[in-house]
């Protein structure tokens, strides 16, 4: 019986397991490469929620010149220029993060109710992840200019973000006036100062004038008083 089993043993070459492992590894590597390539292709197809980040591009352009060892004194940006560019980049990152936080509940709700597809929801998640990475990158960059600046960096960037938004709103006032005058067909300047709004009947007109007298003057005084108190 022992002799029979001994005869049945097949001699296996030392190369067989190695070949087996090799084939397995090759298959795995090919699969991994293809999978990753496909994933990158899919990611590159994602349509970003936000338009191109110019502040990021500007910072990279300046950084390239700043770190270039062959750069002359004339072409190398000043350190404050770099800090300002990084602050602008931080401002845009904060603005985008705030926008994402603002729209997050709507996206979640719409996705839960099946009103938006997987693709759009993944786009949103990808954008949120990307924004997180951008913020981390900014923190690292920040530390290269001054140790510990990062604690002050984001509060300052936030103030800049809000102040710029306020200035944008102020700057758009004239344009808004033009749009409203077209929308409401109110062309006072073109009609030699005559009010385009239908003139109130005499009784009402007087009432309004009286009211305005009462309303406006004390309001200015009140605000003045408020300021004095402040």
């Amino acid at each position, binding site marked *: 019986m022992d002799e029979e089993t001994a005869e049945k043993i097949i001699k296996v070459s030392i190369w067989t397991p190695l070949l087996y492992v090799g084939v397995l590894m090759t298959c795995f590597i090919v699969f991994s490469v293809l999978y990753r390539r496909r994933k990158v292709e899919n990611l590159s197809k994602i349509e970003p929620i936000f338009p191109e980040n110019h502040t990021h591009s500007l910072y990279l352009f300046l950084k390239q010149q700043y770190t270039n060892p062959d750069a002359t004194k*004339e072409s190398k940006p000043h350190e404050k220029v770099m800090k300002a560019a990084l602050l602008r980049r931080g401002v845009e990152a904060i603005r985008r993060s705030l926008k994402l936080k603002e729209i997050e509940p709507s996206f979640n709700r719409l996705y839960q109710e099946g009103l938006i597809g997987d693709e759009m929801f993944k786009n949103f998640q990808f954008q949120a992840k990307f924004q997180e990475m951008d913020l981390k990158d900014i923190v690292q960059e920040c530390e290269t200019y001054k140790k510990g600046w990062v604690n002050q960096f984001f*509060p300052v960037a936030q103030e800049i973000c809000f102040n710029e938004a306020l200035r944008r709103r102020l700057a758009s006032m004239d344009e808004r006036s033009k749009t409203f005058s077209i929308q409401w067909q109110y062309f006072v300047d073109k009609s030699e100062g005559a009010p385009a709004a239908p003139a109130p009947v005499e009784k009402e007109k007087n009432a309004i004038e009286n009211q*305005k007298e009462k309303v406006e003057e004390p309001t200015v005084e009140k605000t003045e008083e408020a300021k004095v108190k402040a």
Partner: protein
Amino acid sequence: MNVPLAYDAKTKQLSLPKEAERVVPLVKLEVDQLNTLVQELIANGSDVPPPPTPENFNKDMSKMIKKLYEGGVQAFKQGKYEESAKQFNIGVAMIARRTKFESFQGTLQELGLFLMSRADAYLKTKNYLGAFNDADMLIGMMMVTPDNFLRRGVANYLLGNYEDARADYQRGLSFDPDNQRLTTELEIVLDKILEENGDYL
């Protein structure tokens, strides 16, 4: 971003070629904003911008702005409404020239006062669109007071937007139901709406 950018070490400013400015206005805007921030940082002197605390609020500028405000109020009281609106205008422009890294809260408070007063001056000078814009901005800045709704309501009424005026007065009244001025204005605008609809008896 394939735009040829140039850096001037002397002025420490970035610039775009003239042709590119027209093609990519958004990049031009970013470059301008960056240049402004660089100038402000250099003018500030410190190596990094100071934290946005009330102590770091530019006091000299505050004094100048306060003077302009007082001048505007004085002119308003004397009945010089054009002059008053002009003073408030300069004040608003000055507030917008504060450095970007100063406290937003402080800027907002200053701007609120100017916009309130400028809206009143604009109503007096019959610049109703300007008054509407100012009052609308005040409400947009979350300064939701009955007075601001009254301002926007009056501007809307005089612009012929009676339904909007009614909504403004009613919203104002929701904050202060006993406000006599708002109540009277609401009655007037309701009469006007009836008249416009041909239902006035």
